[in-house]
């Protein structure tokens, strides 16, 4: 079915249900904690590494799932590591790459232990001051939810278009891929808009 089937949920919507302290912590404090942890991780990765692993264990995230969150980074980290070794030496390279790795791991720990709906509710609270500017915080939250929801939809559209091109022997022409993808995406957006109206978004 959907292309996201390869890794369970991909980077988004990869919530691991649980009842740990991290799961029960409300998203607001968790995000603030993340901010502090990220600052520490970049500055002193050597002190943050062990607590970070401990937090993963506390949240009972399966190691396979934890590694899956970091997999998209390997290539980037390898390049960064090589560059840092040449530019600043091995010690700095380990520190920089370790810092980035920890930062991403900690951020994904928040994703893994927070329901999207809880995150959206926190966003509504955070966006409340925008009401003075005439922006509805619920709309802001819905916008984010739809953006997250659209990722697998568009992935699927791209895959379908690519398959159709292959079946017709159209090769790998980027324009031949882009135009039908755009048209189908706009059509899906229309349909989604219709569904939002039917489900009472404006009532």
């Amino acid at each position, binding site marked *: *079915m*959907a292309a*996201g*089937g390869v890794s*369970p*949920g*991909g980077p*988004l*919507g*990869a*919530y691991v*249900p649980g009842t740990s302290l991290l799961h029960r912590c409300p998203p607001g404090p968790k995000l603030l904690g993340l901010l502090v942890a990220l600052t520490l991780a970049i500055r002193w990765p050597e002190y943050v590494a062990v607590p970070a692993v401990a937090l993963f264990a506390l949240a009972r995230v399966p190691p396979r799932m934890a590694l899956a969150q970091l997999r998209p980074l390997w290539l980037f980290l390898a390049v960064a590591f090589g560059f840092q070794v040449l530019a600043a030496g091995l010690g700095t390279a380990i520190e920089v790459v370790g810092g980035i790795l920890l930062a991403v791991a900690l951020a994904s720990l928040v994703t893994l232990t927070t*329901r*999207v*709906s809880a995150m959206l509710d926190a966003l509504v609270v955070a966006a409340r001051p925008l009401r003075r500017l005439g922006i509805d915080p619920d709309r802001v939250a819905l916008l984010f*939810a*739809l953006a*997250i*929801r659209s990722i*697998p*939809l568009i992935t*699927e559209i791209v895959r379908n278009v690519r398959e159709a091109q292959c079946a017709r022997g159209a090769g790998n022409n980027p324009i031949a891929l882009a135009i039908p993808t755009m048209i189908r995406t706009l059509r*899906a957006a229309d*349909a*989604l808009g*219709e*569904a*939002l*109206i*039917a*489900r*009472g978004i*404006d*009532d």
Partner: protein
Amino acid sequence: MIEVERVTQRFGDRVILRDVTVTLAEPRIGVIGSNGSGKSTFARLLNGLVKPSEGRVTVDGFDTRREGGKVRRKVGFIFTDPDNQIVMPTVAEDVAFSLRRLKLSPDEARDRVAEALERFGLAGHADHPAHLLSGGQKQLLALASVLAAQPETIVCDEPTTLLDLRNTRRVGTLLSQLPQRVVLVTHDLDLLDEYDRVLVFDEGSLIIDDKPAPAVAAYRTLMASP
């Protein structure tokens, strides 16, 4: 009760529906017709997704043109492609989305979501990303989400067109057991056997309005003629 009075529907110069008048009061109503016959537009008129160019549509006295919100609380809508209907990233969240306008307490909302998922065999998928469900499960989720808001009528626009035989039967059976009034637009003519009434559309006109057996027979004859 849904009343469609002398509705003509145009998109630009094209006439999609021509002078349709019908009162829908029965619990089970089927709508059939060839592609482009206007049945899908007819379905969208019933909850105000499409506003009539001429004539009017009322649901329990509420005009779809002026009181769309009240109408859509009464009339839920199921689309052909559940992917376009599921708006939230995970299964339980999508059901919860339907409940937002009801302003329930968090506990009550949670119970309702759990109940809806249980009823449609999705309880084990509550926290799964919606896009990883199978096609059949997605349509069940769409149904669960719409029914959680407890509408009085649900209008389904070819809900089984993308499903395999097993899921088509399953959705058909679920629809036939609902306490709600069901208006089912479909090409799966077998699903309409037990229905109270079947409307047949052809080239924008309502040409047959009868019991399922004679209406389906007449439709088959019509489609067989060149």
